[in-house]
Every structure is written in structure tokens, then in C-alpha cells.
């Protein structure tokens, strides 16, 4: 069972690479190089701040775009192109297919982020000429960005199992936006009453909680990321992704392929 998931994941990674997704690293490298060189003109004394802010924001945005663009087609593309026929007629369970696709895209994003991390640290070394201990927290910020990718990938995959790519992209994007307001939504729900409260609370907890995964500004100022936050976020993302993927499996199990 596990080897089939691994094979499907590996194939998904291979597809992404042959789709030239890794070329985005060139654009990223260019961006970081230009930034590293120009940042000295903006303001001396805050080069480290700007490089980390810019670098991590770029890692997050690039990855988000890739996660959505590839994620929305993970299932729907195979259904449209009928490549699924020869896969599902083999001893591959439908849920294994979903799991394989999920791990394949997540793996692609982790590899991509790894290379980008090297770029960020290289730029940081260039502008500040040495590392300080607090730079290690940049790794924590990168880890949280990867957790964001896990959530988005799960959501895009979920929508892909029953919706067309355009709608999947729109839904996934808006859930990311609203998810950043999740904290505000919870506060708002606490202030309302009655039916509104019930609806708002439900919405506040169904929506993915992206707001606690944003530590870019913190880390850019050299502040530490609490271990407790790391553990809680990891647990939350694991549980939430599991829920979303289960939803995808439930939908996909009963689909008649055209």
C-alpha cells in the first residue's frame, strides 16, 4: 500500500518538474540578487530586516501560486484527460491516489522552498556579512510557510476532486485570504449573538487558520518563535489537512468517471 502512494507521489513530482515548475527558482534568484544589491540604498541599518521580509514574502507568494496552479489540476486534469482509467484499473485504491497526489505536490513545494531558503540565506550573508544566532528563526518562518503550503495543497486538491480548475483556483485563493482573517473572524463571532453567532463561529473554525502561521515580520526583527507555537501549528495543520483530504477521498470514492 505505501509503495503505491510513494510511486504516485514520485510521479506527481516528476510531472511538476517536467512542467518546468522549478524554473520559478530562476526568477526568485534574480529577485533576491537585485534586492541584495539595491537594499543598501534604501536604508543602511535595516538591510537584514528588508532582505528577510522580502525573501520570505517571495518564498510564500511564489509557493502559493505554484500550490494553487498545480493543485487545482491534480485530480481534475487526470479525469479530463482520462489518464485515470489505466491507473484505477490497477490495484490502486482511490484514496491511495489522493494521498499520492497530495504528497507529490507537497514534496515538490518542499524541494522548491529548500532551494529558495538557500537563496535567502545567501542574500542575507551578502548584506550583513555574517550570521547572528537569531537568523536561525528564519528557518522556523520557512517551516511555517511550508505548513501554509500543506494547507493550500490540501484545499486545492479537495476542490480539484469535484470542481473545474477555475473554480478550484478561486475557492482556494479566497480561502487563503479569509484564512488570514481567521483570528478577526473568531473575535467577531464572539461579539455577535444568536443565529449570526452560530454561523460566524462555524465559519471562523471551518476556515483554515492562516493567521497564526505568519511570523515573517517577527523573524525579520530577530525575535524568537515560541516552541509552543511551532508544536501547536504543526498539530493544527496535520489535523486540518487530514480533514480536508478525507473530504476529498469521500467525494472521489463515489465519482463516476466520464
Amino acid at each position, binding site marked *: 500500500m505505501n509503495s503505491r502512494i510513494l510511486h504516485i507521489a514520485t510521479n506527481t513530482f516528476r510531472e511538476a518538474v517536467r512542467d518546468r515548475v522549478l524554473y520559478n527558482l530562476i526568477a526568485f534568484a534574480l529577485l533576491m540578487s537585485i534586492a541584495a544589491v539595491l537594499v543598501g540604498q*534604501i*536604508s*543602511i*541599518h*535595516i538591510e537584514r*530586516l*528588508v532582505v*528577510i*521580509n*522580502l525573501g520570505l*514574502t517571495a518564498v*510564500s*507568494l511564489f509557493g502559493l501560486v505554484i500550490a494553487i496552479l498545480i493543485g487545482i489540476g491534480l485530480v481534475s486534469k487526470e479525469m479530463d484527460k482520462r489518464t485515470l482509467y489505466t491507473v484505477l484499473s490497477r490495484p490502486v485504491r482511490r484514496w491511495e491516489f489522493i494521498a499520492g497526489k497530495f504528497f507529490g505536490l507537497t514534496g515538490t513545494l518542499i524541494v522548491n522552498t529548500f532551494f529558495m531558503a538557500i537563496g535567502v540565506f545567501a542574500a542575507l550573508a551578502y548584506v550583513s556579512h555574517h550570521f547572528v544566532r537569531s537568523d536561525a528563526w528564519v528557518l522556523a518562518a520557512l517551516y511555517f510557510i511550508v505548513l501554509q503550503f500543506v494547507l493550500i495543497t490540501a484545499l486545492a486538491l479537495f476542490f480539484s476532486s469535484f470542481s473545474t480548475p477555475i473554480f478550484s483556483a478561486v475557492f482556494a485563493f479566497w480561502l*487563503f*485570504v479569509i484564512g*488570514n*482573517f481567521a483570528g*478577526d473572524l473568531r473575535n467577531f463571532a464572539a461579539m455577535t449573538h444568536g443565529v449570526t453567532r452560530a454561523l460566524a463561529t462555524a465559519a471562523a473554525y471551518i476556515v483554515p487558520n*492562516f*493567521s497564526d*502561521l*505568519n511570523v*515573517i*515580520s517577527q523573524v*525579520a*526583527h530577530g525575535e524568537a518563535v515560541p516552541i509552543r507555537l511551532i508544536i501547536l501549528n504543526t498539530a493544527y495543520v496535520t489535523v486540518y489537512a487530514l480533514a480536508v483530504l478525507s473530504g476529498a477521498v469521500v467525494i472521489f470514492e463515489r465519482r463516476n468517471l466520464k
Partner: protein
Amino acid sequence: MTRSQKLTAVASLILIVSMASAVVLVRTLDRSRPQARLQEVLYVSSPKLLKRLSLGYEGLLADIYWTRVVQYFGGIHAHGGGQYKLLWPLLNITTQLDPHLMPAYEFGSTFLCAKPPNGAGMPDEAIELVRHGIRNNPSDWHLYYDLAFIYYDQKDYRDSAEAFLHGSQLPDAHPFLKIMAGQMAEHGGDLATARMMWSATLQNSHDSMIRANAAAHLRAIQADADVIVLEQLAEQYRQRKGHFPENFSELISAGMLRGEPLDPMGHPYRLEPGGKVVVSDPDYLPFLDTGLPEGYVPRHVPRLPPAK
């Protein structure tokens, strides 16, 4: 030429002409809507809303707004100064997006306070900015220094001393704060105090505009001190000779001066009837308190030599 080649040529020509026209049109649009360009500097007027909209990327957005602050200020300053109407909104947004962006507080405390054409002339907003900084960075002594400076600039020596005192009690506080607390409480209005304040800024700030500003203040302080000394000499002359000197040559002949006195910008002082001393080119010495000619109104801030 074949038909296909003709088509390619025509299409390419249309492409080039259209793009050129587009560029011309955009420039015309820019010229006809100068106001729009000013306002679009802000994009969104509510800082809290903007922070929400930045979806977790507010750090970078703050850095972008900070560069706009620097560009905005530098641009107006290079053209002789002005009102800097957008300085406060920009700094407000910057510090709401990133309350830990320390250079913004230092910049704001200096240039929001200063009167036009050197700054925005908004001391209350400057205080609000720095207090926001203190709330979010309670253990940073630099902010108390900035606050003390604003009160000093407004000649509120008591509050300034109190700010210095507060700041001096923080861990890692520069010992200078304790010294200034005492100095400000006793001799707030003295030139010596002013010299101490502005020298500290000149030495400690990393921002070139702030340092240039401090240097200009120090030159003004020097000129003020010179004027006082020269007027004292004129008074001594009157006591000796019974009338005020006509010009400095008389003071030199009397052995009271060694040569023509020059202000810190290298321009000669002028002796007015009645023993008053003024500077001949007040434009080059902004921030002067004494020594200003009758009815002088500062028009613009010329380019001053950079701080050393």
C-alpha cells in the same frame, strides 16, 4: 514581397506605432492629473485596514512604505523644502504595519516636529508617533530619547527632562540620558543644552538627513553664540567710547576683535545701528534664534553641505 511578409511588416509597424502612442498618452495623462499622483502615494487611507489586507506580509509592506517616506521627504527637500503634508500619514502607516521599525520613529521625531520648510510642523503627531513606538517597544531607550527631543524642540523642558529620566531607567540605557535629565531640568533653555542635544544626535544617528539637520542646528547655535558675544563687545565699546561702533573695523582698531567675524557658513556678520548684530545670509542658517534681520521670513532651504 509575399503576402505573408507584407502582413508581418504591417503588423510590426502597427505594433511599434501603437506602443509609442501608448507611451505618449500615458505621459499626457500624468501631466493632466498631478493631484492623482500625490494621493496615490497612500493607496489606502486606513492603516489598520491595510495591515489586515496585507495577509501576513505587512513586514514587507512596511519596508515599502518606509522607502516611500525617505523618497517623499528627500524629493521635497531637494527642491527647497515645503510642507511635507503626507509625511505624517506615511509614517503612521509604516509604524502601524511594523511597530518595530525603529528608523521611522527617529525620522518622525525629527522631521514631523521641525517647522516648514524644514519639516511638517506637526509636533502633536510626532508625540503620538513616538508614544505608539514606546507602547510597542517598551524596553527601547532610543524612543524616550526621541520623545525628549520633541518636548525640547517645543521648549517643554519639564516633560523633556521627565522623558530622559524615564528612558535612563531602562536596561542598557545610554548614560547620556541620565546626564540630559539633569541638564534639561536645570538649564533647559541654555545654548549649552542645545549644543549637547544636537551633538548627541549628530554622533549617534545613522540617517544622513537627520545628521545634516543636526549639523545645521549646531551651526545655528554657533551663530547664536557668536551674535551674543559680538553684541556684548559692541556694548563694551559703547561704554568706552560713548556710542555704538559703525562697523567691525572700529572694533578691530580698538583691539577688541582680531579680524572680520564670519558666521559658520563663512559669511560676514553685519553690525546694525544700535549695536545689533545680524547674519548677512539668514537663508544659509536655518534654525537661528537671534541674529535674524528685521522682518526676515524663511523662504526655502538651500542645499547645505553634508554632515561630516
